Every structure is written in C-alpha cells, then in structure tokens.
C-alpha cells in the first residue's frame, strides 16, 4: 500500500506539470499580449512620406515657373501640414502646427485643435492634388487650388458618433520663409461626399484555408516569395476540395518603396496562379500595421493605391478583408479611432476598387454587427469549442443585417507538449470535424492554416515559447509536407459541402 502510494506520488508531478504548463500557454494565448525585450521592438515604425501631392499643370502661365524642386518642397510642407493638423487634433498638442502653418492658417488650425479637445472632432487629409494658380516672380508667394479627399469624424468616449469623407476643393496660399514654405491660408470652396455603391454578392459558398508557405510564414511570405512553392500549395488546397485561400498583404512590404514594386508583381503572379488553379483569393490588407492615428492615414491610402489596382482588375478576389482582427486593437488604439479608420479605408477601397466586396475579419462573432452597414460580407474567427461555434454563427447571422457570413478562421493546434497535451493531431482532427459540421450553413469556412511551421514570427506572437509552439501546429500539413488527420477531415467536409 505504501509502495503504491509512493509510485503514485512519483507519477503525479509528470501529469500535473504538463497540465499546468499547458494552462499557462492557453492563458497567454487568450491574452494576446506581447513581451518585448527592447523598447524599440515595441515602438511602431512609421513611414514618413516626403510628399503625397499629385501636381496638375497650371491652366495659365505663372509669373515664375514652378520647378520640380519647388513642387517637392511645397508638397512636403502640405503633406506635413495635414499630418500635423491631424496629430494635433488627436493629441491636443498644437505646438507642432508652427512647423507647417503661419498667419491665418495657424490661427485657424490652433482654433480647430482647441475645438477638437471639446467636441472630439478629427480631420485627416487622405489624398491631395494641387494645381498652381499663382506664383510670385521672386518665389515668395505660391497659391494652389487643392483637391483633397478628406475624412472628418467626431469621437466621444470610445464611440464614433459621426464620420464623413468628401472630395474637397480649396485654395491654399503658401509663403516662403527662411525655413521654407509655410501654409498661410487655406479656404475650402466645395465639398462632395464620396459616392459609394456596394457591389452585389454573387459568390458560391467559400471553402478554403488561410495560407502562408510552411518555410516562409508572416513577414517572410513576400520577402522570400517562391512561385513554385505557392503553385504546389494551391494544388494542396484544390486537393482538399477548397475553392479559396486567404492571404495577408503585410503593411510594410507593400509600402516600402524598395520592396513594394516587387511585391506587387509577386501578388499579380499569385493571382495568376490562383486563376489557373480556379481558386479565389481573400487578400487581407494592412496586416501587421503598427498605428492608426489620423496623421498616418494618408500613408495608408498610398498602401491602398499600391495594392488595389492589382486586386480591382483580378476576377479571383472573393472579397477584400480590410484588416485582420481589427477589434483586438480597440483597447490599445481607441475603439472610436479604429472604427473611423476602418470606415475611411473601406470608403477609399470602395472608391478605388468599386466592384470588389469588402469585409473585416473580426476575431469573434460578437463583433459581427460592427460596421455592418459599410460591409458586403460579415466575416469572423471561431477558435472556441464546437458548441460555441454554433452559437457564434447564430449570433453573427443575427447581427449581419442579412449579409452573407463567412467564418474566415477556424482551427485547432495539434501541438503536444507531453502525453497528448495540450493538443494532438487526432484531437485537432476531431475539433475541426465538429467545427466544420456546425458551420455547414455558413457562406464560407476557412481553416487556419494550410501548413504547420517550424518557426513563427516572434514579432507577431511574442517571445513566449508556449504561444509560438502552439502557433506552429495549426496546419493541415506537417512541415515535411505530409498530411495530418485533420486534412482528411477537411477534405471530407469540403467535398460534402461542395456537393450540397
């Protein structure tokens, strides 16, 4: 009896310890927090555009020719001026205005900042083009007709209470000072709201996977783009019975001028491969975007101007996912600001790619009703227990205002630390089978992910080995390319859904 008790005492730690560690891992996963080793890792890298002004030829001859250098310098100050105004209204700090504004414009900008602190008003100039009206012969006064796309919104206690985007036309007068051009006066002459028409949703039900290549997930996808691997992986998706892949267009890779061109070309190749394989694509925009302040929105529009021409002309786009799990940024970045940003990016996307349906991949069905009037498809992620999966779909449908509901991420990790805990390949297959069963009546289901990974990006999931290990094993295919049991489950579910 004593010996049996001692044996049990020796075994218990080996059972308890993995369970305890697994619990820690799950807790960390659910918190979605990151621990940084260095403060610089936590800070958002911000691309600063020198000038986002598009120049239009003057209608009449100017007293002085506007040179390329003049345009560059005036464009820089206009770009900086609107960034500063947006930042000042957001922060209440008006001191940064003096770098760009003087005279009447400075007085008005300062007044708008003080009003913003009372009313919660915000402005973000998203695009601007300038046509010279007047240039003084000695180069000291420059007047331009400025055409902008401008977002204005009001926030209050985490709520977005008004939002509008307009095409504005105005007259801006700049004066050359010893430190360069400054905005002396700006007056708006007209405003026209963006005319946004929703496209019709006419897609068949979507069945597919979220996709990164096994060796090059997250940030490495576009940096080590390999056509042959992508082509082979899309064959895997077809083999699973899928008709769609969800991909992620990382923010920096499509914004950095040194990489954007190559990545746009690679995106075109990927869509061409998808066309040949008869697969649809859900591109998820702004992936790993670091900040959402209105001062940076004009840069986001440049990102859209880069990727949307490719997406707008492709027939393979099922819908555009504006931002992955945007609701997870509500707390850190202020919900109202995120909602204003989302509505702005939706509007700009719709204007630049009017035929493409738009969605937001919410992290939970609880958000399925958020911005539903702006979207064409409701999409959310469901990683909970199968019983929650069914409830989640029901809730999403209730909130969706009649829009199709796509569950764009489901799945389970097969990572096993010890004794089949916290997961196993068999358990992963069972969870997926149950989830897919519960979601049979949705407009689409996408599994997270096609592949297991050797390594996951620590800048995405933090340095915790638990989180990272769990994330390595959500795939339907192992790192060596062999199928996991979950793949067979998915194939069966997709083929039966397709038959239905």
């Amino acid at each position, binding site marked *: 009896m004593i010996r049996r008790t001692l044996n049990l005492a020796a075994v218990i730690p080996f059972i308890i310890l993995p369970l305890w560690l697994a619990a820690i891992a799950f807790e960390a996963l659910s918190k979605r927090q990151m621990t940084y080793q260095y403060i610089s890792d936590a800070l958002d890298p911000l691309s600063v555009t020198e000038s986002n002004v598009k120049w239009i030829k003057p209608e009449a001859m100017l*007293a002085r020719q506007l040179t390329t250098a003049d345009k560059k310098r005036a464009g820089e100050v206009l770009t900086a001026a609107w960034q500063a*105004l947006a930042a000042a*209204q957001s922060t209440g700090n008006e001191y940064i205005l003096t770098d760009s504004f003087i*005279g*009447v414009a400075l*007085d*008005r*900008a300062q*007044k*708008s900042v003080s*009003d*913003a602190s*009372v*009313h919660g*008003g*915000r*402005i973000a100039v998203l695009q601007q083009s300038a046509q010279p*009206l*007047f240039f*003084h*012969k*000695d*180069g*000291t*006064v420059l*007047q331009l007709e400025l055409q902008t796309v401008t977002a*204005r*919104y*009001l926030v209050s206690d985490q709520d977005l*209470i*008004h939002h*509008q985007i*307009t095409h*504005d036309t*105005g*007259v801006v*007068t700049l004066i050359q000072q010893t430190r360069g051009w400054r905005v*002396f*006066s*700006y*007056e*708006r*002459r*007209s*405003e026209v709201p963006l005319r946004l028409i929703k496209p019709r949703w006419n897609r068949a039900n979507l069945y597919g996977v979220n996709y990164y290549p096994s060796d090059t997930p997250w940030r490495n996808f576009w940096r080590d783009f390999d056509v042959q691997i992508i082509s082979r992986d899309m064959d895997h998706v077809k083999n699973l019975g899928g008709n769609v892949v969800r991909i992620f267009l990382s923010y920096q890779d499509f914004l950095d001028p040194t990489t954007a061109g190559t990545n746009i070309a690679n995106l075109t190749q990927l869509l061409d491969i998808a066309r040949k394989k008869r697969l649809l694509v859900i591109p998820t925009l702004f992936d790993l975007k670091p900040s959402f302040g209105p001062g940076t929105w004009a840069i986001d529009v440049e990102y859209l101007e880069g990727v949307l021409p490719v997406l707008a002309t492709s027939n393979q786009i099922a819908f555009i996912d504006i931002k992955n799990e945007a609701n997870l940024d509500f707390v850190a970045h202020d919900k109202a600001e995120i909602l204003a940003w989302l509505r702005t990016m939706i509007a700009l996307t719709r204007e630049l790619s009017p035929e493409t349906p738009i969605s937001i991949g919410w992290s939970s069905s609880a958000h399925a009703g958020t911005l539903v009037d702006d979207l064409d498809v409701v999409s959310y992620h469901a990683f909970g227990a199968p019983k929650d999966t069914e409830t989640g779909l029901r809730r999403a449908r209730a909130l969706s205002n009649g829009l199709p509901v796509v569950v764009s991420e489901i799945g389970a990790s097969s990572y096993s630390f010890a004794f089949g805990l916290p997961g196993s390949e068999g358990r992963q297959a069972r969870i997926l089978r149950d989830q897919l069963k519960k979601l049979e009546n949705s407009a689409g289901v996408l599994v997270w992910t096609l592949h297991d990974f050797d390594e996951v990006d620590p800048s995405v999931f933090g340095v915790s080995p638990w989180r990272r290990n769990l994330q390595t094993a959500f795939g339907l295919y192992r790192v060596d390319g062999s199928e996991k049991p979950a793949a067979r489950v998915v194939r069966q579910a997709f083929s039966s859904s397709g038959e239905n």
Partner: protein
Amino acid sequence: MRVFVVICLLFATNGATAQAVVTDAFGIYFKTNTVNERSNWSDVSPNIQNSALILPFVGPKSLTAGKDRGHAIALVFDQFGNLAMNGEAFAFKIGSSTQTSTIQNGIAEVHFAPGVTAGAFEVGISNGDIQSTRSTYRVTADIASVKPAVIAQTQDAKLETFVEFKIEPLLDQFGNSAPSGFGAQLVLTHSDGSFSLMSPYVQNSALAADFLVRDIPDGGLLQASFGGQKSTHIQVNVAPMALAQSTHISARAMPSIRAIEIVAGPVLTASGHVLNDGAEARLTVGSGSGRSVTQTGWLRDGYFKTVMAIEPTDLPMIVDLATALGNEQIVIKSLSASNETNSGFGQ
C-alpha cells in the same frame, strides 16, 4: 451662411439627441448656441467682408535699371482672415507711378518696369482707406552696359615700384554708378606672352589695382574686363633701371696670400632700392703690371664681395664693376697694409 453645415441627426444610444455638425477646411465640430469664431471663416458658401489687411510683396528685390520687370502683389484679407472678394480693385503706387489691379483669390498683382535710375524705391498698395505697409525694392545699375576704360599712364612705371592701374568712372548706359563690391579683372600681357592678373573690386564707382613692376622691363598691354565688357588695350611702359649714385667699392690687401679682397656695394637703383639678390655682377681688376683678373658672381643684400689673386703691391689698379644698372670704374692707387682683419680698406 459662411460655413457649410451638415445637419446630422445623431442618435445617442440613450435617446434621440440631435446635434448639428459643422465642417470647414480645418475640421468638424458641433454647432452650439454660442457664437463660434469659426462661423466667420470663409468656406463652401463664402460671405466675405470688406478688405481689412493688405500684405504687400514686391520682387525681385533687386531689379536691373531699364531691363527687369518687377512684380508687386497684394495678398488681401477681410477682418476675419478670409481672402478678399474677387473683383475688388487695388491701387499700387510704385515709385512715382500708379497702377490698379483687381483681386483674384485674394491676390491683386501688377507687373512694372523699374525705371532707369538706380536706388531704393517704395511700393504702397491701397483700397480706399485701407493701406498696406510700405514695401521696398532696389534698382541697380545695368552692369552689362558699363564700358570699362583704363586710365592711361602719365609717366613710365619704374621697376621694383608699385604702380596703380585705375578704371573710372564705372557708369552704365543710364549714368548709374556701378555698385561697390562688383569684381573686375585686369590682365597685363607681357612681351613674352605671359601675363599678370589683378582682381580688384568696385569701390566708389572706380576700380583700382596696385601692381609691383618687376621682371617686365619691356612693360606690356593692359586690358580690363567688367560685367562682360572689355576695355581696349593700353600700353604700359616701364622706365629702364638706373644707378642712384656711384657704387662704393673698397679693397683690402691680403699679403699673406698675395691677394686682395674687394667689396662693392650697396648697388642702389634710382628708386633707392638695392639691386635684388642674385642679380649678376662682374668685377674686372687691371693691375699696374698689366694683369687683368675678372670675377663674376651675384649680389646679396646689394653687395658683391670677392677675393682676387692680385699682388697687393701691383698698383695702381683699375676696377671695373658691371651690373644691371651699368658699368662703373674706379682706380685704386694704394692699399693699406693689412693684418687680414676687417679693417684697413683702401681706395
């Protein structure tokens, strides 16, 4: 209605609270019962008040007499800082003339000819009782039309002296003086094709350059360049060098070696300078017995010093000294006995 008002019914979650929203060039805010100064800002539906502020800009700040056209503008605002109404007329008083112009997008402008007289001028812009502050512009001489003329020498230049080359008056086609500070070039081309370059600056409507006359016994041709114009060449003559006075020549007996030491100098020019170091000198001594010995060398500090193998007692001696300043001759009839110290020179 100066601002564009968007009436939006914003329903708060707790009930039907409607608030009007106003947008303008600088943002968005709630319309409140209190008067907001932003309601006076010109916007989509402008209602501009009378002009209240005129900001003058005139340029370029330096105009060339009779050539450049100036550009005077008025940037005009009403009392609330709105750009003035299109079509409003403004009077520009430029120098002694007056022109009018009408406003477009808050700017009235005139192009004007600056006149032919150099100097500082003022511009004032007005509309009824409203006047701008004064703005100034300058008219400068038409440098390109200045024809430089070098003043000819009244006497030949002397070697090893400074000579001043002068160009004046520097006047443009309208009689305006060239402003101080402008640079010019004077080139003196020597007889062997080499040249000397001087770069004086204008001061008090004149150019002046000091030139050290050295190694150019034949003078040269002088030409001035200023503002793209060149003067005619003028001949610069150099007076030949001459001795100021007879050169002092002393001799000392060196009986122990049966020689004499001769020191000649200082060799002075008519200008009072010693002949330069390295100038060649040749000394020939003819003794009483008929021997003749010649030594050549170079001056140092104006002196030529040499020891000649002539018996000190072979008198009288005729000493000939030849330098760049000419030939001189003296006769030595006696030499003092020497203990070969520095004393005991005879002549």
